[in-house]
């Protein structure tokens, strides 16, 4: 058993001559399946025109960059970390899922899974708890996309001993050193994200793509409500559609409006009322149509039409 320690053998590197002389971008576009992701994005997401345009641009940039790397013109991995800013319910998480898929198809992340976290998942409760916790999450996200929702909560300027700063430092380090391994997307409300970036300039410089999510228009929200219902095999009748349009207009002026999320909650409650109505009123057998139709009365009963959110609770008589 006498052996000398062996040194690492050098693997043969691809020769310069093996690089392609020309690149067919259209073929690469088809081959990578990017078209399907973009088409899916167009088909499933209503509105969001500026977001879609930005994603299209990003996809084009990455495709060209990939081609440049094949030809040996570029060697560095481009910075892919992004920030999604916008009001609640504007589709940030859904777009992040699509983005993970897109990056996976373009070969910038190996697995393409999305790990969604908030402050609680990154920041520990006592000294020495934060670093392992943050690293655990980062390891889980490697090969995919780490989506940090409401990222500004990581930084609490009012408490200088807050452990969030430690999580930020580890995040920044991994964002810089393991650029090949994971892509970080920070999400949150526009104004608070701006303040967050101001107080953490390290983040701003490491994030290449800032994407703003606009609010949905009333029309778009109506379309979204119909798609949401359709996905659950429900539908509005004529009166209900007009009521829904009125509901959206009224709901927008009330507090805690969260775009598509408010719509989803309203529909959930409408389904509840519909079930209750059918249960109380139904005489004899019900057909598929009755079971899947939301009527005007199911929507009209909403608090939004009766003085708005938060008012009717105060009107209730106090408990004895």
């Amino acid at each position: 058993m006498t052996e000398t320690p062996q040194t690492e053998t050098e693997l043969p590197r691809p020769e310069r001559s093996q690089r392609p002389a020309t690149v067919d971008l259209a073929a690469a576009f088809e081959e990578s399946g990017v078209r399907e992701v973009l088409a899916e994005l167009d088909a499933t997401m209503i509105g969001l025109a500026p977001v879609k345009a930005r994603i299209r641009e990003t996809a084009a940039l990455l495709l060209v960059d990939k081609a440049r790397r094949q030809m040996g013109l570029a060697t560095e991995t481009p910075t892919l970390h992004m920030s999604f800013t916008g009001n609640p319910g504007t589709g940030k998480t859904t777009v992040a899922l699509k983005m993970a898929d897109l990056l996976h198809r373009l070969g910038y992340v190996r697995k393409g899974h999305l790990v969604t976290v908030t402050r609680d998942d990154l920041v520990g409760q006592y000294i020495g708890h934060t670093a392992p916790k943050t690293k655990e999450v980062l390891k889980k996200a490697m090969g995919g996309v780490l989506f940090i929702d409401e990222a500004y909560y990581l930084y609490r300027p009012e408490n200088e001993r807050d452990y969030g700063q430690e999580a930020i430092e580890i995040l920044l380090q991994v964002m810089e050193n393991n650029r090949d391994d994971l892509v970080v997307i920070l999400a949150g409300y526009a104004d608070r994200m701006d303040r967050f970036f101001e107080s953490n300039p390290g983040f701003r410089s490491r994030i290449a793509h800032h994407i703003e999510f606009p609010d949905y228009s009333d029309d778009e929200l109506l379309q979204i409500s119909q798609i949401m219902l359709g996905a659950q095999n429900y539908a509005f009748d004529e009166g209900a559609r007009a009521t829904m349009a009125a509901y959206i207009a009224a709901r927008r002026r009330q507090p805690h409006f969260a775009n598509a999320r408010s719509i989803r909650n309203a529909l959930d409650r409408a389904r509840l009322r519909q079930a209750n109505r059918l249960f109380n009123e139904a005489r004899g057998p019900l057909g598929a149509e009755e079971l899947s139709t939301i009527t005007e009365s199911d929507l009209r009963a909403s608090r939004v039409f009766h003085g708005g959110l938060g008012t009717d609770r105060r009107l209730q008589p106090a408990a004895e």
Partner: protein
Amino acid sequence: MRLRQGQFSFLPDLTDDDIHAQAQYAIDKGWAVSVEYTDDPHPRNTYWEMWGHPMFDNRDAAAVVFEVNECRKAHGGKYIRVIAFDSSAGWESIRMSFIAGRPAEEPGFRVVRQEGEGRIVRYTIESYAMREPEGRRYA
């Protein structure tokens, strides 16, 4: 003398890319990969020190390479291995194990003879490194 334990030990040292590929194979099979280290090279030393928890829900081997490198920083002069645990019924055991880091100098083993009753001689092996106390065995 080079320690030959586990898989790939007759090959040149694995590069980070090799470790990534092997760990990814294990992850794709659904095994939990973890990193361990020791400074006792005896072949019957089964239980090494754990470096962090087994990585149960990591989908990508980059995390394994990351932990191996972290372990090298802290325990560079020791033996580091990557193991893959299969939790499925019937196996519940280690399915893969390979050395991912070793000391620069490995002094090897000596034969120890013990005189027993009559003229019996019992043989065993001992690493030269083991003559130093724990933590001082490799430079």
